[in-house]
């Protein structure tokens, strides 16, 4: 059996083929990710090119011609005449960038600290796990908010806009490393006590090799599940912070920023400015969440 | 055999899975007489516990009874509704599980669990139920029962907990007790005490016992009759003395060879080569044929049905079929 056939026949693939939810979620997530990545090429307008914006186009309802200019927009326009569809594509790009970057940051940090704690044990382990316990008892969005607030305090006001997005990534990443660390620490402790590892250490095999060959492969499943659900959480965290007005700068609006803007026009009847970015965010978060949920069940059939 | 307490006829239990339906129990029949102790032996996966679960109506989904009948005193119980079956459980058929450490609810005292069970099946007052519970605990050998009844399960040792479990299984005076490996999880030192207790107390009350175990030694000491299960089928069933002294099915012969005895001067235990087939790979013909030293071509062609061999004894093996078995065997030997 060749490699592809083996993958196709595996339990995971079988479970995937028989889960309409997982298939639809994957397709939706892929479409959104692709559309976001390709935004500069597929967006009908560049919403950040102020030269192409016409204030007369403002508040055009979706699918109807503007009363002054006669231009028609699929999802309408916002107060400044920006095409909502295009802002969503660019906004999703920022949301996804922050989400993926935060997850990667959290994953690297969590795996690193988890290995350190599990492998070294002793006070390093106690200290890290105590910190993890304390952090875990607070909701991650609050941790992210606090880290963000503290970090902003240390950064001179002139630079805040510029580095805001990186501060945001680090804040969200730092709020979410604990679960990776716990899983990896557990696996490291189990493997460390096994005889072949003891033997390998005696004959001088580099610890890095043991870690790469034996510990990491064992935790790939759980880490993947945590990362998938973590991506949904990171996207939601970013949207929340941006909605609260403390996330990405207004010059780089993410989906959360767009919803914040849209909320202001709710009472004056321009519902489309709010609705379409909300749907985009919901679809993105939901599809990633569903994927994570399915993955967890598929890797751990006992939970079904 | 109409006077049998429990009569299982052609029982079939299936598990639908993604790769097709697995038949875990295939055409199993046996009887238990009132007051009789029937030992059920076999390797793990032979279908012993499933048979017990099917009788008491607690097969876990997706497992299901796909055929056959289970009769309790002539009344069919395998097709009863949930509520009617619930009334039979505990009241007419009791069950003792393998692990006493996990069989008791940790958040309730022993008294609470006993009284609740007694009052589910008998319309008596709390005080009356408590009196019965204390007496029962005393009977199963809990010292200072009146005081210890208000303890939580974790206050008892494993052996003591299994005594509590037995008390719970018997507290509504069932006619049949299914004991599913009741001593496997216990210390060797208390195993025989628990087996003796089950035997005694059931004899006292006239309750029949279906004793599920993989320990032939326990069967030899305790059971009146024994059913040997292999791969979801009855290989051999009969009075325990006959089956042990003169086993007929090659599998039973193998099982006997694996019991250590003090009298064996050649201290060699014979193990049966190979392992029981998995449910999705049961060979054609007799399921035992890959491991059987005496298998011949008929064993690979067709499945042997249980053949009567004297008084209430049956063997499912072609070696004992009337059609020219002797000639075949001579040719083989």
């Amino acid at each position, binding site marked *: 059996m060749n490699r592809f056939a083996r993958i196709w026949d595996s339990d995971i693939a079988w479970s995937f083929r028989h889960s309409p939810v997982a298939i639809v979620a994957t397709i939706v997530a892929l479409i959104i990710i692709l559309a976001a990545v390709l935004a500069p090429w597929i967006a009908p307008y560049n919403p950040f090119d102020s030269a192409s914006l016409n204030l007369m186009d403002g508040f055009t309802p979706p699918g109807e011609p503007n009363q002054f200019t006669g231009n028609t927009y699929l999802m309408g326009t916002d107060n400044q005449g920006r095409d909502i569809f295009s802002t969503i594509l660019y906004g999703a790009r920022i949301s996804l960038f922050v989400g993926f970057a935060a997850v990667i940051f959290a994953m690297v940090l969590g795996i690193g600290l988890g290995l350190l704690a599990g492998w070294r044990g002793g006070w390093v382990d106690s200290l890290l796990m105590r910190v993890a316990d304390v952090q875990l008892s607070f909701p991650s969005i609050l941790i992210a908010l606090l880290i963000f607030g503290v970090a902003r305090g240390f950064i001179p006001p002139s630079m805040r806009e510029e580095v805001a997005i990186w501060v945001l990534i680090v804040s969200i990443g730092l709020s979410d490393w604990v679960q990776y660390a716990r899983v990896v620490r557990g696996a490291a402790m189990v493997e460390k006590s096994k005889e072949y590892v003891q033997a390998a250490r005696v004959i001088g095999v580099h610890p890095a090799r043991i870690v790469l060959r034996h510990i990491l492969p064992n935790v790939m499943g759980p880490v993947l599940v945590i990362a998938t659900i973590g991506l949904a959480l990171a996207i939601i965290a970013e949207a929340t912070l941006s909605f609260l007005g403390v996330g990405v700068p207004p010059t780089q609006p993410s989906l959360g920023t767009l919803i914040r803007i849209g909320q202001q026009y709710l009472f004056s009847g321009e519902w489309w400015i709010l609705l379409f970015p909300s749907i985009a965010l*919901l679809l993105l978060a939901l599809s990633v969440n569903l994927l994570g949920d399915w993955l967890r069940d598929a890797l751990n059939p006992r939970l079904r | 055999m109409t006077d049998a307490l429990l009569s299982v006829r052609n029982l079939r239990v299936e598990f639908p899975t993604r790769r097709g339906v697995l038949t875990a129990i295939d055409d199993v029949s046996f009887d238990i007489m009132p007051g009789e102790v029937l030992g059920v032996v076999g390797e793990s996966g032979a279908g012993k516990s499933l048979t017990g679960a099917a009788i008491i109506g607690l097969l876990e989904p997706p497992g299901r009874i796909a055929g056959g009948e289970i009769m309790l005193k002539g009344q069919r119980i395998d097709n009863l509704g949930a509520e009617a079956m619930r009334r039979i459980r505990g009241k007419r058929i009791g069950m003792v599980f393998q692990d006493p450490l996990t069989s008791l609810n*940790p958040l309730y005292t022993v008294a609470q669990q006993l009284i609740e069970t007694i009052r589910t099946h008998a319309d008596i007052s709390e005080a009356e139920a408590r009196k019965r519970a204390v007496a029962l605990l005393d009977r199963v050998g809990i010292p200072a029962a009146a005081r210890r009844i208000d303890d939580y399960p974790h206050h008892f040792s494993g052996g003591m907990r299994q005594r509590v479990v037995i008390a719970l*299984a018997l507290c509504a005076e069932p006619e049949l007790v299914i004991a599913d490996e009741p001593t496997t999880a216990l210390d060797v030192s208390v195993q025989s005490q628990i087996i003796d207790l089950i035997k005694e107390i059931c004899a006292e009350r006239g309750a029949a016992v279906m004793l599920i175990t993989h320990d032939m030694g326990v069967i030899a000491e305790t059971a009146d009759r024994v059913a040997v299960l292999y791969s979801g089928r009855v290989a051999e069933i009969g009075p325990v003395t006959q089956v042990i002294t003169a086993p007929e099915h090659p599998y039973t012969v193998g099982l006997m060879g694996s019991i250590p005895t003090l009298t064996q001067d050649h201290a060699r235990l014979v193990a049966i080569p190979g392992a029981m087939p998995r449910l999705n790979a049961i060979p054609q013909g007799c399921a035992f044929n890959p491991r059987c030293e005496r298998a011949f071509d008929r064993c690979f062609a067709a499945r042997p049905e249980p053949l009567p061999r004297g008084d209430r004894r049956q063997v499912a093996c072609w070696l004992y079929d009337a059609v020219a078995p002797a000639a075949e065997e001579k040719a083989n030997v």
Partner: protein
Amino acid sequence: MLAYIIRRIAQSVLVMLVVALVSFALFRFVGDPINSMVGQEATIADREALRDQLGLNDPFLTQFATFVARAAQGDFGISYRLQQPVMELILSRLPATLELALVSGILAFTFGVGFGVYTALRRNGWLSNTIMTVSLIGVSLPTFLIGVLLIWVFAVELQWLPSFGRGDVVSVGGWPTGLLTPSGRASLVLPAITLGLYQMTLIMRLVRAEMLEVLRTDYIKFARARGLANRAVNFGHALKNTMVPVITITGLQLGSIIAFAIITETVFQWPGVGALFINSVRFVDVPVMAAYLMLIALVFVIINLIVDLLYYVVDPRLRVDRAATRH
């Protein structure tokens, strides 16, 4: 038992000290407190005098001790932005947040446990599947979006409920409550649902998972084998065992509710401490941030303590084991 409580309290104090250190570092090193307090025209000598007066030139430990001592008395200094004592600000806004959190918590717990038990018992029923699907959408919907959508439907389109503020409040023994006025109650509905929905889905999924786990245990099988009624097995034996872990996590959720109130309060312009905190983050109003941090930590520590004690009451095994086996 007593030793256990004392150890838990000691741990709590330690956590509070660590949080105090973070708060203090924030307070002391973020920006220059002097800049925030004096105008541009102050001379260097003026500033130096103020530094001395405020103790900013003292050794680190002395300053930290002073900070902790003052914090313990509720003195967190003056808000840079609002120029009022921080504690006064927080205290005036705390009732609004607590009232919101409490109502949402009760909503979340009641419906969470109810739906969780239902979906665990009717595992493959269509209603269970519907509830589970909706709950996944609920988990994926960010809290702020739930709030905004609720405003759109119930405040803008249907105009049934107010979209912001707390309505009329009456003071009961110095505690301003909105629960006793019609407009106060109406104003509470949408924020309470917004805040409670996410927690409800979490509790529900947790209850369901725990209950399924418990239903698989031997003691439940044994209870069924003894012929106990379904109701007794499901709601007596299974539910009680389910509630042990659920109580812990739900208790901790109460802390999350107070933290998530930040978002809800912003969406509904609810005059609570969360909205105060968000503004302090936006304007880098350090004293308010530091005080909020300490307050939240205190709330979490107290809840943790209560949950641990509750656990002890519910699970008889812990009464002997835990005190002995915990190191």
